[in-house]
């Protein structure tokens, strides 16, 4: 695609702008900001990626992945205010999942060890892990608040913090995984996954694109499970003090 044809795609920005103005939706400013931001951010990423791919330096790959994890942590920690040490718990979750999935992908030679593959797949893993951790933390704190009395009951009968929180933890882990599983059940029927469409448009063999999409789906399933389980077991102890009393995350 040339920059001229790319600029023609701005017609698709013009349409909502005109609609917003004529219908008085008041969304012109936000639409413009969104447009400018996506142009600047994506082009920057494009150039950075091109630079990293060309350099073929392992250091840059690690740096890129580190940056992704930092951004994901920054985003997700806002949902976890009040949880003791939430920042490092998120970092630990993201780093463990990234290390585990990359070891499997590269160790079994499922994908070649090039910057293209490592960075693209890491982006999907970390991005997905971030969304999942926000989902999980939201659900878990809601579940804990709604079940404070049951937690207190179990503690009062001589149960451990882990026993007091067990059901809430399992419910939240399950709830945060369900959207990933459900969306995979209908995939391909309602709409083609964006990544696959992109590959097909770029001229890849559709079967090849499907194979790759399957890899990504399975990878994300793993990511979803690992994120909520890891984060759950890392965060639940901070719901209790050393006398095994419930403390609140709210603050």
């Amino acid at each position, binding site marked *: 695609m040339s920059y001229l044809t790319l600029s023609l795609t701005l017609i698709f920005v013009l349409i909502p702008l005109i609609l917003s103005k004529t219908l008085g939706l008041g969304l012109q400013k936000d639409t413009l900001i969104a447009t400018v931001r996506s142009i600047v951010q994506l082009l920057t990423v494009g150039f950075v990626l091109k630079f990293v791919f060309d350099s073929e330096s392992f250091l840059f790959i690690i740096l890129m992945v580190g940056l992704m994890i930092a951004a994901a942590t920054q985003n997700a920690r806002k949902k976890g205010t009040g949880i003791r040490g939430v920042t490092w718990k998120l970092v630990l979750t993201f780093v463990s999942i990234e290390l585990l999935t990359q070891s499997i992908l590269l160790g079994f030679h499922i994908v070649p060890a090039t910057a293209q593959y490592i960075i693209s797949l890491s982006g999907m893993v970390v991005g997905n892990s971030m969304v999942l951790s926000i989902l999980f933390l939201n659900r878990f704190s809601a579940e804990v608040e709604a079940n404070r*009395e*049951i937690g*207190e*009951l179990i503690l009062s*009968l001589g149960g*451990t913090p882990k*026993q007091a929180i067990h059901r809430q933890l399992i419910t939240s882990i399950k709830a945060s995984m369900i959207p990933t599983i459900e969306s995979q059940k209908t995939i391909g029927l309602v709409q083609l996954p964006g990544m696959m469409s992109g590959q097909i448009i770029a001229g890849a063999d559709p079967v090849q694109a499907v194979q790759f999409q399957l890899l990504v789906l399975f990878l994300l399933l793993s990511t979803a499970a690992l994120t909520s389980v890891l984060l759950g077991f890392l965060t639940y102890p901070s719901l209790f003090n050393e006398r*095994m*009393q419930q403390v609140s995350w709210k603050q």
Partner: protein
Amino acid sequence: MSSNEPPAIQFENVHYAIDGNTILQNINGSFPSGKITALVGPSGAGKTTLLKLCNGLLSPTSGAVYIGNQLIEQIAPLTLRRQVGIVLQSSPMLKGTVFDNLALPLRLQGKEMTTDEAHALLEKTGLQRSFLNFNVLDLSGGQRQKVSIARTLANHSSILLLDEITSALDRTSVHEIEELVQDLKQTSATSIIWITHNLDQAVRVSDYLWVMMDGQVVETGDPSILESPTNERVLKFVKGEQL
């Protein structure tokens, strides 16, 4: 309290505050061992909070709580909570059957309860055996309260804290529960602290009495002090209850 035995629970200058609000202040005194102490006072007086301090669900902001001769902080939380059992005011129920709830204390220790043991607990609290497989959602408020009592009994605690356990019961059931508690005192020398709203009940069942108001203990002594109070605040409280 004439014997050499230490009191079941003792308080020394206990204060409790949460988020800067003082809930309990200057709590001094004790609950005698092997007796029933009734804890009365208007709602919001801090009775429930005091009870939760006794089995470590809460810790005092300052001051000391002793269980027997031992400072409460020196007892491991799990040991403490099995030794000092509590029946919570709201009778929270675990999702599932009555059996799931009765078996909970043992399951928390990795043990399983037999049907016979569960039946015995039901009988103690005046519930029929057929309730065992009932879903707790199908129980009435009074039945829940009985299951809640039976559940706590499964731990065979030497000290029992009862928080308004007959508030949802009919007259006959109230008497059954009162007999059960008297029986626990007599046959297993359990020390009992019983929060009740019903002053007649307090006089009827207890050997010793605490009156609390506004986070303080205003009077302790023989339950008969409720019948002809000399303390002005107690008098006011008793009159208020009779309205």
